[in-house]
C-alpha cells in the first residue's frame, strides 16, 4: 500500500496510527495534513490562548510606555510592546489556519475573549503599579515565557514551532531589557531598591502560577499530559517551574533581593527546589476573569473593538469594490 494514493481509504484508526508514527519519528505536521480532531482542538486551544495572551500582555506594559524614565527606556519598551503585539499577530495567524476548516475566524477568537471563553495568561490579569513592575515583568515574566516556549520549539506542529523560533529570539532581548532595568534600580537609590523589592513581592505568586498547577489531579485538567503525547510540548508544568527557579533564584539573590517565601531552598537529595505552592483556587479565579485588572483590560479591548467597528466595515466594503 502506498500512502498518499490510498490514504483516504484508510480507517480512522489507521490514519491515527499513521499520524502518531509521523510525530514519533519527529516529522512536522503541516496545516493541510490529516490530523485527528483532538490534536487540532488542542492546538487551537493552546495557540489562540498563547496569541491572545501576547496581545493582552502588551496592555500592562503599555501603561509604562509613556512613563518610562528616560528616552532610552522609552524606546526600548516601545520596541518590546511592539514585538509582543507582533507575536500575537503571528500566533493568531497560525490559529486562524487551524480554525478555518471549522468555519471559524479571528472574529470568533475576539468574541471568545470578550465572553470569557478564551482565557489569557494569569500574569496579565495583575496590577503593574510602578516602574519596578515594568522591570519585573520584562525580566521574570518574559524569562518564564522563554522557558515554557523553548520547550515547544520542537513542537510537532510545524507552523507553531516556526513561529516560536522567531518569538523566542525576540524574548531573549526582552529579558535583557528587563534585566537592564532591574540592574539600574538595584544599583540605584534606596527608594529604587524598595520599589524593586515591592514589585518582586507582588509578582512572586503570579510567577509560581505562570507554569500552571503540578498535576492533573489538582485541576482535573489533562491538557498538558495530552499535549505531551502529541509532542506539542515535552515537559510538565513542574519541570518548567523548577527550571525557572534554577535559572533565576540565584540571580535574584545575587541582587540582594528577598524572595517572599521563607521556605524556599534547593534540596540536594531530590535535586529539586522546595517552595511554598501558590493558591490554585485563586489562580482559577484570576484566569476566569476575576483578577485585579482582568475586567479593566478586557474593557479596553472590548471598547476599541466596538469603537472601530466602522473601520472594519469600511475596509470590508473597500474589498468588495
Amino acid at each position: 500500500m502506498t500512502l498518499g494514493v490510498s490514504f483516504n481509504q484508510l480507517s480512522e484508526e489507521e490514519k491515527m496510527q499513521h499520524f502518531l508514527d509521523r510525530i514519533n519519528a519527529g516529522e512536522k505536521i503541516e496545516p493541510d495534513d490529516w490530523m485527528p480532531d483532538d490534536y487540532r482542538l488542542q492546538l487551537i486551544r493552546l495557540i489562540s490562548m498563547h496569541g491572545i495572551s501576547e496581545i493582552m500582555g502588551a496592555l500592562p506594559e503599555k501603561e509604562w510606555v509613556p512613563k518610562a524614565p528616560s528616552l532610552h527606556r522609552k524606546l526600548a519598551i516601545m520596541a518590546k510592546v511592539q514585538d509582543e503585539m507582533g507575536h500575537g499577530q503571528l500566533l493568531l495567524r497560525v490559529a486562524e489556519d487551524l480554525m478555518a476548516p471549522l468555519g471559524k475566524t479571528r472574529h470568533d477568537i475576539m468574541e471568545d475573549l470578550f465572553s470569557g471563553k478564551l482565557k489569557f495568561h494569569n500574569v496579565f490579569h495583575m496590577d503593574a503599579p510602578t516602574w519596578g513592575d515594568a522591570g519585573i515583568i520584562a525580566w521574570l515574566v518574559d524569562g518564564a515565557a522563554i522557558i515554557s516556549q523553548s520547550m515547544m520549539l520542537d513542537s510537532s506542529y510545524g507552523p507553531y514551532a516556526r513561529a516560536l523560533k522567531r518569538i523566542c529570539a525576540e524574548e531573549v532581548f526582552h529579558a535583557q531589557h528587563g534585566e537592564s532595568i532591574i540592574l539600574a534600580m538595584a544599583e540605584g537609590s534606596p527608594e529604587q531598591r524598595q520599589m524593586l523589592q515591592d514589585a518582586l513581592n507582588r509578582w512572586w505568586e503570579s510567577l509560581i502560577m505562570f507554569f500552571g498547577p503540578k498535576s492533573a489531579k489538582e485541576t482535573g485538567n489533562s491538557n498538558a499530559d495530552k499535549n505531551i503525547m502529541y509532542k506539542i510540548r515535552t515537559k510538565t508544568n513542574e519541570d518548567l517551574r523548577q527550571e525557572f527557579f534554577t535559572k533565576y533564584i540565584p540571580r535574584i539573590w545575587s541582587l540582594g533581593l528577598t524572595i517572599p517565601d521563607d521556605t524556599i531552598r534547593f534540596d540536594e537529595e531530590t535535586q529539586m527546589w522546595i517552595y511554598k505552592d501558590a493558591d490554585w483556587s485563586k489562580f482559577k479565579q484570576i484566569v476566569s476573569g476575576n483578577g485585579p485588572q482582568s475586567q479593566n483590560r478586557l474593557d479596553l479591548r472590548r471598547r476599541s473593538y466596538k469603537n472601530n467597528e466602522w473601520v472594519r466595515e469600511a475596509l470590508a466594503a473597500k474589498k468588495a469594490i
Partner: protein
Amino acid sequence: MTQETLKPQEKAALIELLYQMGDDDFILSFRGSEWLGLAPHIEEDVAFSSISQDMMGHANLYYRLLEGLGEGEADRIAHLRTPDQFRNAIILEEVNGPGTYLKEPEYDWAFAVVRNYFYAVHKQIRLDSLRHSSYEPLAEAARKIMTEQYYHLMHWEVWFKQLMTSTEEAIGRMNAAIEKVWKDFGGVLTLGPSYADIVKANFIDDEAVMKKRWTNKMEAVLKEVGAAYPGEPRMERGNGRNGVHTDDLKQALSTLSEVYATNPATGW
C-alpha cells in the same frame, strides 16, 4: 556650518527650529503610543506602534543635537521642561479622544489617520528641505529620519485614501476629522517667531515655500478622493511655536515625566 562656526544669532535660531521639530515628533509619538492595543486591528497595532517608536527615535535625534548645542542632557530636555517651553504645534498635543489611555478611551481613528497623514506629508516636505540644510549635523539627521519616514507617509496615505473612499459613515467621520485638524494645522506649517533668522541661515526652506508645497499636495489628494479643499489652514487656538499650549500638553508632559521627575539625578 558646524557647531563651531555658528554665530550666536544663528545658534539661537537653530535651537528654536530643533525644539519645534523634536517636540512635534515627541508629542505625536506619545499620542500614538496611547493607541497601543486600541487600534482597529492587530496588524495596525503592530504597524502603528512601530511608527510611534520611530518617531520617538526622531525626537531623540533632535534632542541629541540640542544637547550638542549646550541645551542640557536630552533626557532633561524631554522630561523637565515646563509646557510653555515646548514648541510643538497645538494640533499634535490634542488628546486622541475622550477618556485616557488607561481608562475608558473613546479614541477616534479618523482623527488619528487625518492628523498623522497631514503631519507625515509636512514632515516629508520638511525633511526634503533639511537634507540640504546649511547645518551639516541636521542634514545628516534628516537623511537618517527619511529612511523611516518614507514608510510612515505611505502607511497613512493608504489609510487616508481607503477610508475617504469607502462607506458613507467612514467618509462622514473622516470629513469631520479633516475639519477639526484644519482648524489648527496652520501651527504645524509655521516656523514661529524666529522664522526670519532660521531661513536667513539656510537651516531650512522658507516657511511660505514649504506651506505651498503642503497645500498643493493636499489640494491634489483631496481632489483625488472627491473631497472639498477647506481653504487656508488655521491656528485657532494659537501658535505652539510661541509656547502657547492647551491643558492637553500639560497632561501629556506630566505622564511622560512621571517617573523621571521623581529623581532626575539617579540612573534609571
